[in-house]
């Protein structure tokens, strides 16, 4: 066991982990931050995306020890200080960008990373960026729409009905 320390959602945390403990497991099992989901075992589905030092990272593809000393952000830390949904979360609700909710934390975290680098992405840019996030429920329509809306773009013209 090795001690690992990091900042998660602005709070200092530490724990004893095995060398093989994944960051996703550390978040879920050690810190009880179960909003980060694990949907596959090959680094493909993106349900486990978190931010490590500001970058979107698949937390199932990173050892907890690799995050020692890092600033980690998870879905639990995304809401506004008053507890209300942030702009991206609110856009997902407004545009029905989620159904079962399982891929949603990863989608929101990926969307946040995208918009940080590219504040007004095109539809094509969003779709390409989300290559690493699989959703089985929405057919992606409303996820793409929500991210466009969150970036301040007019989505009224995107046909829904």
């Amino acid at each position, binding site marked *: 066991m090795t001690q690992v320390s990091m900042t998660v959602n602005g709070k200092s945390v530490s724990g004893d982990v095995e060398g093989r403990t994944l960051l996703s497991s550390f978040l879920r099992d050690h810190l009880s931050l179960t909003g980060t989901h694990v949907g596959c075992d*090959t680094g*493909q589905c993106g349900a486990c995306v978190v931010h490590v030092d500001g970058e979107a990272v698949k937390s199932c593809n990173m050892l907890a020890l690799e995050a020692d000393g890092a600033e980690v952000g998870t*879905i639990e830390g995304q809401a506004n200080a008053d507890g209300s*949904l942030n702009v991206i*979360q609110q856009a997902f*609700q407004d545009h029905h960008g989620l159904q*079962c909710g*399982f891929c949603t934390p990863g989608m929101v975290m990926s969307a946040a990373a995208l918009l940080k680098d590219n504040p007004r992405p095109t539809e094509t840019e969003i779709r390409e960026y989300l290559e690493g996030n699989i959703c089985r*429920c929405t057919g992606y329509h409303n996820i793409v729409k929500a991210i466009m809306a969150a970036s301040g773009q007019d989505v009224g013209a995107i*046909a829904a009905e």
Partner: protein
Amino acid sequence: MPKDSGIGASSKRREDVRFLTGSGNYTDDINVRGQAYVYFLRSDIAHGRINSIDTSDAESMPGVVRVFTGKDFEGVGGLPCGWEVADRHGAPMQEPPHPILAQGKVRHVGDPIAAVVADSLEQARDAAEAIAFDIEELPTVTDMKAAAQEGSVKVHDDLKNNICYDWMLGEADNAKVDEVFANAAHVTTLELTNNRLVANPMEPRVCVAEYSRGTDEYTLYTTSQNPHVIRLLMCAFVLGLPEHKVRVVAPDVGGGFGSKIFHYAEEAFCTFAAKACNRPVKWTSSRSEAFLSDAQGRDHVTTIQLALDAQNNFIGLRTDTYANLGAYLSTFSSSVPTWLHGTLMAGNYKTPVIQVNVKAMFTNTVPVDAYRGAGRPEATFQLERVIDKAARELGVDPIALRRQNFITQFPYDTPVALTYDTGDYNGTMDKLEAAADLAGFAARRAQSEANGKLRGLGINCYIEACGIAPSNIVGMLGARAGLYDAATVRVNATGSISVMVGAHSHGQGHETAFPQVVAEMIGIDESMVEIVHGDTSKIPFGMGTYGSRSLAVCGSAMVKATEKVIDKAKKIAAHLLEASEADIELKDGQFTVAGTDKSVAWGDVTLTAYVPHNFPLEVEPGLEETAFYDPANFTFPAGAYACEVEVDPETGKVTIERFTAADDFGNIINPMIVDGQVHGGIGQGIGQALLENCVYDENGQLLSASYMDYAMPRADDVPFYTVDHSSRTPCTHNPLGVKGCGEAGAIGSPPAVVNAVIDALHSGGKKVEHIDMPVSPSRVWAAMNG
């Protein structure tokens, strides 16, 4: 003006807040103090005889609580099949045992041989490696036509062959069918495959089971679409436990698409092991394990023939299908290629003579069962592909050919056992033609051609039988369960309402849509109504969610229960208002005496129900009602879809450029949610048509066993969709007039995509008749250059 609340409003989903903030409560988020972890040792060969299993080394490994094998389950039942299909001669299907852990033989890669329970998952996994076993590898059969041959390798030694049943529906007299085809002006024949798929909800399956010696009670948390069904099957058929001592909870469930309907071995195992080990146990499937243990979908091989007269009227249809059931009968597997498939072969058309034959096979592959659409996509695909081929052979417009043969009079008795209550297929097609801008297609094709691409337009229709199902009808057809549902409307003293429903929401938004109905009926704010689901200790006995049934069946029960509540509340209001009950009206949460200004508010009546100081003597205190609803018929959502593709003639790559769906779902409670359901179905249908394929090699090894190899649709594989559900013929036999929308997209979209690809190739002078799904670049390129 769109409404902002109640029936017809796009109310935002209240469940989203917890999902968007990481506060959901999925089964893997549940941990019970002292829990041990389960690891299943699964067969890595597709067929073998178990000569011996030695667990002694594993049992002495660190942290191991106990190791189980098939021998531990000799005293309990196997996993049951919920539907007995009779073959064409009346004999019951062949029904082999389906043990919790393999007994005697392993029959597919992934068949569980043993299970280790240990203090940690890592210890369980390490110990599983120390299990010594001698399994003699046997020849395998994975191809269903090969499995049907006499002398084939037998998956189950005790059965007479691999044929589960040879089933027939429609015109049984071959001579009559032959005569129709002999007299036809034109016959179109098509052989096709409906590719095997893996449902792949993003949440893998999980079970957490605990047992209390003090009370002899069990709790199983499981990723299920129907917790009561799981409890009944597990208690009555597998473990022999009294239902009242077992609580099954399906909390937030991360998608199902059918694959979480079934009672799986892991559920029974964990429940059994929790008592045997006197410790809570937890099993979390990895995705790799899900590919080997979740029931898979589709996998049909079909020859279909359509006979037309000289005026292009459909006069006969004959279809012969081989269906792959895998190694064992999953819970509803037997019903999918038969009653959920053959009965849909009339489609939207008045074909007078139809004969359906299905031969269902056991093979050394993972069991196959319902996946979104379940039988209906297979029916729609073959029918709509053969119609498209016929139109091309005859040189007629594919829409005109369909319109000419549409059923236009309702109710309509099909030759394959269903009665369509209502529909307007021409009206729905009109909506599609407008929404898809079919008039502009020629210009778009010219533009694509100018860019060096081939552009194709694919049209198809679909009909589905949803709102599953009238118990008396399915009982006659072999179902071993009723398919009603139930709801309890519990009004609290202060007027808020808890509605306990048998339906289960795993993405469908019931927590939002169901309250819209109750709130509208009473005239109160939606926020005063809460839906409780997914816990057998809280909800009445209901059958859960699948087959696009939640609103049509459980919603109807909820309406009935709410009506009972309102009737009783009116009695109380009449007493308070000193008026006749017949004169009481309820509107906007106020009870009024007709023709007067006397009124009493909903909250005053509900408070009186629980503080009955001034109360009618003949009425019981309290305000809570339960209703069960058994539908009189299936519901019949129907639609017309259009897909436009571009094909790159250099590479064979297909790009979906436009996709338009025009659906008739009857009445709609929440249009936003309905749009989302259709989007998701189309996404899965495009996945089947272009990308997804579950492939076994000849040894039964699953070649597509991870997201590296099984091509899930990603955001850049699909376009924005255009969805129109303004064509509405309300269901005639349920109180809300709803039909169901959950499966439509997955049923209606695959043929549209393939029809479009074929159309594109023809526009480029390539006379390709058919390409099997997935229509991958290599297959398209080969077809163009073959």
